[in-house]
Each structure stands twice: as C-alpha cells, then as structure tokens.
C-alpha cells in the first residue's frame, strides 16, 4: 500500500482542522478494520490518516441525565457488548456489536466506524435505527445532530461533509416494557457479511399482549440500510403474535430493493427480509416480556 | 505366458482383443513381444526407456515404479492404467 502521513489529534478542534485542511486526502482511522483493508487493496487512497482514538469524546461512554446513552464514535464493539447496562438498555445494539467480525475485529471495530463506513450491509446500522439513535457531528461550522436513518446516502457514502467528524451516538432513554433484537442471515455462523440484516424494536401496552409502538431497520436490501416505517406503523395496536410479526415481515419486503450479487440473489434477499423481520420481532417481544437480553450465539435454527 | 489386459482405448492395436498373452522376464521384453505381435504398441505404452507419461502399469495388482525393468512372472497379470496424482 502507498505510504501516508499519520496524525493522532487529541481534540475535536484539532481533528476538524486537519480534516478541513486535507479534504478528501484525509481518511479517518478508528478501529481500522475497514479503512486499513481498503487502503491496502487500493479501494481508497489517503495522503493523511487521522487516528481519532486519542480524542476523549470519541472514546467515552456517558449516561445522560434523561437516562439515555451517549457513546463515543470510536468505542470498540467489545466494550459496548461487555457493558451490562448497555446490554439491558439496548439489546439490539449489543446483538450487532457481538457479531461484527470475530473477537479480534470487535476488539478494534467501533459502532461509529461501522456507521461511517456506510456499507449497505453494516450490522450496527439497523440496530441504531431501531434504538432511535442520533449522530453528533462536529465540523468547521460547529456541531449538528442527524438521525442515524438519515446518515447514509449510498453504498460507502454518508452525509459527512468536508472537515466533518462523527463524535458520538446518542440514544434515547430505554422505554418500559420494550425490547429489541438484531438478526442477520449469513451462510456461515460467524465471520461473514450479512446477506440480509434486520433490527426490530417494540414496546408493548400494559396488557403486554399488543404492540404499542414498533421500529424496524433493514440492512443489505438497498443502497443504504433503511427503516421499514410502513410495516412498523402497521404493527401499532396489533396483537404481539407470530401472525402479526410474519405479516409485518411481508410488508417489510415491500421496502426492500436488493441487488443480486455473490452474497445472494435479489429474490432470495427479499424473501429473507420477511423471515428475519418475523424472527427479530419475536426475539424483541421475548425481551420486552423480560426474556434474556444477552447477545445470542448465532448458531442453530432460528438463531439467524 | 503373462496375461496382459488391454484398456478399451488401446484395443485398436490388438484387433479388439481385451486380453492378450505375452512373454517376457520384465516389462521391456514383454513390450517388445507385444510390439512384434501388434505393431505400434511400444509407441503407445512407452516413451524412451520408461512408461509413457500419464500411464502406469499394474503387475499382479501392484502398480510398479520400476518402469520397463519391472519383473514379470510367467503367470503374471498385467494391467495398463492411468497414472495417479498425489494429494493430502
């Protein structure tokens, strides 16, 4: 790979200044599990690599006064999924963090990096969408906040403009009698890229029998991960049953417009959307009713 | 006389015979004997002083690595088969 300059700024301002100065010749380095591969394979070119892991804000985990969570864009996955409180509050997120690559990848890869890489198949993005996460972005003109479902603009592209930097992800306080689950389908049981990924979040009414509110996120079925709003809205007020979930899955298929590639034919992917949405909702409702929230080892039928 | 099994693709040389008898204390003598009876046989089975590339000879169900010097008993059974490539 071609050589490049390396800088590790210790403040956001310093980082923003570097990024603004070098424009698209500058590439950000968090966990490096995507960018180093892309540089090595010549898929991306960099004059300057900006290591953002020395910036305190990007490495912090902070619980907000409202009970919500803010975690730095460069916090590695293994820190996220080892945090009992995060597991309990945002189980879909920890599902995702636990299956991005193997342990060695999770030791480095960050949720923020997964988001900024903006792959249509990114495992964390559907979970961030259904957990209602927003992105705190710093730039030359100051700070702005963007909902995660508006962050990606296409395969490998996002709304970050020149000089901008993702600082952290902000999650709303966990709701009562709510649960979430992320599942992906891959041919192996680990070390693979999602053929389809589905995140589901739902909140039950007092009876615990019907859905008061739901959110659905999909990966690898469109140029960007997306939020299946129609199916989610339809679930409102529906009984929290397998029937409703599989009907919601059928509706979610309509939101999918996948391509055929080496990871799976388009029609197969559309079919899988229904299957995974149903299964993710089933997992989410189990957690909403007090079921185990720990990440599930993705092996065996119905585990993926 | 040793019995030589002729694979179908060589039977054109033996007038269609699938099995012929031949004499020889080793494979070279056997081939010479066959060449006399069936002209062209030597060219098909041998290259220089060894068995032709891609072919192997099994004598009494043991594939020989001794080439044309492999010993042949008077009651030996000889097969001409493809050479096997390794693996593992």
């Amino acid at each position, binding site marked *: 790979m071609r050589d490049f300059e390396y800088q590790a700024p210790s403040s956001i301002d310093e980082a923003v200044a570097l990024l603004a100065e070098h424009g698209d010749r500058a590439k950000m380095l968090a966990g490096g599990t995507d960018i180093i591969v892309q540089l090595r394979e010549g898929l991306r070119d960099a004059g300057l690599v900006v290591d953002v892991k020395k910036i305190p804000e990007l490495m912090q985990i902070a619980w907000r006064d409202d009970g919500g969570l803010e975690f730095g864009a460069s916090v590695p996955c293994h820190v996220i999924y080892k945090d009992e409180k995060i597991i309990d509050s945002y189980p879909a997120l920890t599902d995702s963090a636990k299956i991005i690559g193997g342990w060695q990848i999770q030791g480095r890869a960050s949720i923020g990096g997964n988001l900024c890489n903006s792959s249509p198949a990114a495992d964390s993005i559907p979970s961030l969408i259904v957990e209602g996460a927003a992105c705190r972005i710093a730039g030359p003109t100051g700070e702005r906040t963007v909902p995660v479902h508006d962050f990606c603009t296409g395969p490998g592209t996002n709304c970050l403009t020149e000089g901008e930097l993702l600082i952290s992800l902000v999650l709303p306080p966990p709701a009562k009698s709510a649960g979430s689950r992320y599942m992906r389908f891959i041919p*192996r*049981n680990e070390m693979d890229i999602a053929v389809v990924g589905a995140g589901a979040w739902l909140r039950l009414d007092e009876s615990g029998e019907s859905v008061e509110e739901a959110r659905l996120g999909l990966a690898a079925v469109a140029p960007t991960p997306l939020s299946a709003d129609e199916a989610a809205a339809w679930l409102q007020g529906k009984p929290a049953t397998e029937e409703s979930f599989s009907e919601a899955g059928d509706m979610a298929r309509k939101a999918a417009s996948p391509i055929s590639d080496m990871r799976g034919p388009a029609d197969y992917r559309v079919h899988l959307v229904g299957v995974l949405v149903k299964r993710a909702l089933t997992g989410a409702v189990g957690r909403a009713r007090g079921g185990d929230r720990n990440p599930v080892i993705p092996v065996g*039928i119905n585990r993926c | 006389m040793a019995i030589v099994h002729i694979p179908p*693709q060589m039977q054109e040389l033996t007038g269609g015979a699938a099995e012929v008898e031949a004499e020889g204390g080793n494979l070279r003598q056997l081939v010479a004997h066959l060449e006399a009876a069936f002209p062209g046989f030597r060219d098909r089975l041998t290259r220089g002083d060894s068995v032709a590339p*891609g072919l192997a000879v099994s004598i009494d169900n043991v*594939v020989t690595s001794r080439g044309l010097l492999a010993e042949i008993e008077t009651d030996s059974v000889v097969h001409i088969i493809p050479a096997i490539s*390794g693996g593992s």
Partner: protein
Amino acid sequence: MSDNFSNSQIIKDPGDNYKTLGTRPVRHDGVDKVTGRAIYGNDVQLQGLIEGAILRSPVAHARIKSIDTSAAEAFPGVLAVATSADFPDPKDKVADLGEGPVNLAHLSANCLARDKVFYKGQAIAAVAARDVHIAEEALSLIKVEYELLPVLTRVLDAMKEGSPLLHEDLRTNEMGKKADTPSNISDHLHFEQGDPDTAFENAHLVVEREFKTQTVHQGYIEPHVATAHWNQDGHLTVWASTQGAFSAREQTAETLALPVSKVKVIPCEIGGGFGGKIPIYLEPVAAVLSRKSGRPVKIQMTRDGVFEGTGPTPASFMRIKVGVDEAGKILAAEAWLAYETGAYPGGVIGPGCMCVFSCYDIENARVDGFDVCVNKPWTKAYRAPGSTHVAFAMESVVDEIAAKLEMDPIELRLLNAAKEGTKRVDGPVYPRIGLVETLEAARDHDHYKSPIEGPNRGRGMAAGFWFNIGLKSSVTAHVNNDGTVTLLEGSTDIGGTRTSIAMQLAETLGIGAEDINPKVADTDSVGYTDITGGSRVTFATGLAAIEAGKDIISQMKGRAAMLWECEEGEVGFADAVFSQDSNSITFAELCGKLSSTGGLITARASVDPQGFTNGFAVHICDIEVDPETGKVDILRYTALQDAGKAIHPSYVEGQMQGGSVQGIGWALNEEYLFDEDGRMLNPTMLDYRMPTALDVPMIDTVIIEVPNPSHPFGVRGVGEPPIVPPPPAIANAIKNATGVRMTELPMSPPRVFEAITKNGGAPS
C-alpha cells in the same frame, strides 16, 4: 489421555501387541510450534534479504503483446525485475516431477506467463525491492499490453465443437493416442468391463442423474512463500514451504535448466498443503530475482494471489447411471465425467475415473472421463484428488436406489461392497481391504442406531475411497552413545509425521518414541524422498525407518558379538535387549560401548515399496435444515475409516476430523465465484467461506485397524479418504430431512432454499 481429548473408538486387529505403536506421545516438534519458535517459510531471515512481489494478469485470456518494466526498474528501492524472458526456453519437454508428468513449458509459463495468459491472476512479472511495499508500488509501474481473447469458464461450453481454443496445439490424448484435430479436451479416458448395455436392460431399477460441482481451494492458512539465494559460485539455495523438497528441487532445476546438484532445497515448516504445495510457483521467480540482484529474495503470495494464482481443484459435470436387481445387487453402472483442468492440461480426471465405482463390486461398468481446459487457474491435487466429485454423484445415486427399494443404505452398500478379489473397472483386483468392516462398524455404531427426531432433521451416510501410493523414501539414522537415535528423514512434515515415523523406528528397536530425535533434512543431507502426498508418508517413509532400524540391530549384534567373543549369529535381540547364552545387554548400554568397539553407528535406508493399498471411509451425519432460509446445520458427525494400524491414534483422528470438515466446507459453502469474464469474485477468506469453529460439531471417529498386508506394521495411508464422504453424506441427509435431492455443490442456503421451494416445500 485420549478420553480427555477425543471421542474416539479403535477397533483393533486381534494380532496387535505393540509397545510404542498405538500410544500418543507428544510430537517431537510440538514445543516449538506452541511457543512460536518453529521456522516456517516466511520466518526465514537472512543477511541482506530483500522482498519480492508478483504482478498478476487482470484478464482471464489474452495474448501478451508487450511488457515494459523500465519504470519499475527505475523506481527507488527496486533491485530487480523479472519476466518470463529471464527463464530459459523450456521447449516441450515432459518430466515426472513428483505428482505425475508435467509439461515444462506449462510449468514455466505458470510461474511467469510467456506470450499468453490463460487465467485471471496468472503471474506475469515480479519485482524485488528493499521491502514489499516498494515492490508492490513498482508493480503498478509495469505496463503490459494485452490482446483480449474469448473467455471460457464452463467445462461443457469448452467441450463444444467449434468452441474457441485455449491451446491451438492441444490434441485430445486417448491413453497415449493423440486426436487429429485440436480441442480444449486434453484427455479422454474410457474404461469398460462386462456388458453394461445388456445388464441395464435386465435391471429391475435404473437411476440416472446429473451432478455439478464448483472449483474449490485447499485453503491452507499459510500462503505460498519461497526464499532463494543464487550464490556467486552458481549454487542456488531455496528455502521452501513445500510438500516435497526433492520435487521442488527438480521442478526448480528443470524450470531454470540447472542440474539438480546445483540446487539445494531447505524445507521449512509448512503451514498446510493438502496437495496444493506439491507444484512450485515462486521458487524459480525468487531465484532469477536473486541472480539479478545478487541478494537473497523472499516472495510471499498475497491471499488473493493464493486463490487466483495457485491450483485449486476442478469444477465438474457428471452423469451417473446405475441399474440394480430386485434385491439391490448392482448389475450395471455407467459414468460420464467432465473435469475442468483449468489453464493447462494434466488434471485429476484419471483418479476420478478410477474412484467413481471403487467402493463397489460391479460386473458390468463403463466410464468415460474428460479433462478440459478452461480459463481458470491450473487445477492441482486437493486431498484425494478427483475422488470427492465422483463420490458426491455415485453415493447420491446409490442412496436414491436404497430409498426406492426401501432398503437400509448401509445394507445396500454391504450387498455390493468391494472386497479382496473385486475387480476394479480400471482393471486391477483389490488385495485385502476394509470396506466391509467399516460399513459394518457404521451400521453397528450408536450414532446410526440412535433415533433422529424433530422436524426438518435427517440423517445421511456415504462411503469414500482413496488410494495409498508407495513411492520413494529415505532416512538416515545416527545412533548416539546415550541410547538415543537421531533420525534424518526426507519427508516434509505437515501433520505430525516426524513422530509417526519415529515411533516405527522406536518400535523396531524396542525403545521409546522420546528416545528418537527425528529431523526433516534438506536435499543435500538425506536420500531422495518423494512428496508428502498420496497418504504415503507414514506408510513408505515408515518402511524406510523400519529398514534402518533392522540395520542398526544387525550392526549392534556385531558389536555385542565382539564384547562376548562369540559369533554374530549367536546374538539375539528382543525388547531392546541383546543376548547370548548368559550374556545380555540393553540397547542403551550397548550404545555406550559403541565408540570403544569401532565407533558410533549410522544406518540408512532408501525404499521404493511396490505395495499399493487402499483406504475407505464411511461417514454418518445428522443435519437440520432451516426451511425458511435453506441453511443446513450439522448436528452430529461420525467418521469411520479402515486406517490399518494407527501408529499415533491422535493424529489419525486428526486426519479424519480435518478431512471431514474440509469435506463439510466443500459440501455447504465453499466455491469459486466467477463473473462472465473469468474474474474470481471472492478471493478472500471472508467470502470464500471455509468452516469456522462455530460451523461444525465435534467429529467422532472410529478407527478400524484392518492391517495393510504390504507393511510390516499394517499401516495404511489415512490422510485422504476422510474428505470424500461428507458431500454425499450431507446431500443424503438433506434428502431425508426435506425430501429434496441436491445435485449441485455447494449446497449453499440459496441453492437449498430454491430446491425446497421448487419442491413445494416450506412456507415462505
């Protein structure tokens, strides 16, 4: 100990009463390998060492009009650039280089392309520089002009009349006879016995099916790597990661037109081969770069270079037809097999044709096999080369027949099993073999007898076969005065064979395995030894060790006779003790007296065993299919094999388990994906999906010790048969779980789901 570390059962031969054989000592090279001290090919460090990189073709079929390396040569830090112009013209010589005959023009052009490229990823030029980054940057400065040619990626297309030709001069070889007109079909084999046509007419049931398999790679974790130093005295030293130091020496010497005496190959520890490290790719390239730069040069392939630029095992198309009577006796069988040999002739269709019916006693049979050139990498051996393809086809058809006759699949196989005296379709007759015993052990195994319950679950079984070749092996043994023996052997050790060979010498001498110090020696330090392959090392190199042991005993009897002033013939030897009348002395004690009775002893042996045996594997697996996704989950797996005498049972089990999991990968997910232009889409270990630890269960093993009559300890090769049964065993299990018969590998989720859906299967 074995109980802690495996779920293994050994069915011993009654005559078995060995001291060392059958124990499980820690391997002699073990500590170096768990502490990181073992030196593999890429761990070689030399004074002045520089690094090389390879430029590979971006297109699958083209004429090379020109190569301009001037900019690369001028790039700072570059010390040498090489193209095929730096190789001697290989002519059209054919040489036997360890894995059968190889055309040197093809071998040379596969190391650095000459005139034409035949596949995407073929090596074209190489750069040596101060470090690999500089070398890779310089590669991008090499300008190559291509004249694109039509690309053939499918075997049946390449066989068609009037299809574009890869090699204008290639004429189909029909067992020594060349066809008159050029073709992409390099070889056609035809076997026939009995009268298949009439037998099919008389059959009660005839099943005929077509099958397809895709290109798969051996998948060793260590990339190919070679280091070469071309000394000013004209001697070339090569540090290689190879399955055969002498084979690598010959291939390198022939490619460079050097006498073998000028080439020394030092075999490093080797990070897996499975057949893929028999051919050379980098050695002569590193050599010419060293000659031009005057420095030692190391080249390691990138992982995509390994996938695209080395020899995987072929994709295939197969048609199988089998006819049986009411009782299930096979009356006739017919096979039509087409294998892709890839860029150049010389594939594995031969063994494919010999293995397709090798598990059965079939009176009337016909086999036609074709090796076909296509614009893909030049295929090479992969564990039981050619056998897994045909087993997938044949064992699926046999399973379907058993189902149609409502017979137990093992009983049907027992009824038709090959045994001692069975005449193979390619001619030879089997000696003592253990297929029947292995099938019976499977039938009686708890796994096969236990019920399988639950929806979408099924059990399947299949049998598999591979040869056990002999070939040449040498060892040298030095007896030390402390009662130990240093053993130099010529076989490279991929999976613990140092120890299995040392144990055979120990058994011969009646001493412990720990008293032998085995070393793999370079080509200047031990006698000629053929490749590590063909499941031959423990068998043939073991024979050499036994011979050397006998020589040591007879020499030491002479020394004992000197001590006791008796005739050598009066000295006996048993259980490591020499004796005569009242005199007796242990092996170790006598070692201590060697220097005072004429000096320490060296023994050596070079063998070329003519014995030729066979190994059979029978596998049972339980699977569950997810009907909504088509994904197959392996629930339980048992591998049984007639291993002959298991010298070191742990490593026999390891071969069975490792081969099984390679076969599971081949069955479920592994395949080369190509676009229409012949570009591989998935040349990474992420997208070429080899099984991870989470994809497989424990692999239970049963070793059936049916002794090999042509080895004093009854050793059979065990390395290769285990990869053969998994694809059909899993296909048969899928059939029993879902009612769907899969006829294409891999049986990946989209394929299985499509088949289930077509079958009106699961709700979606």
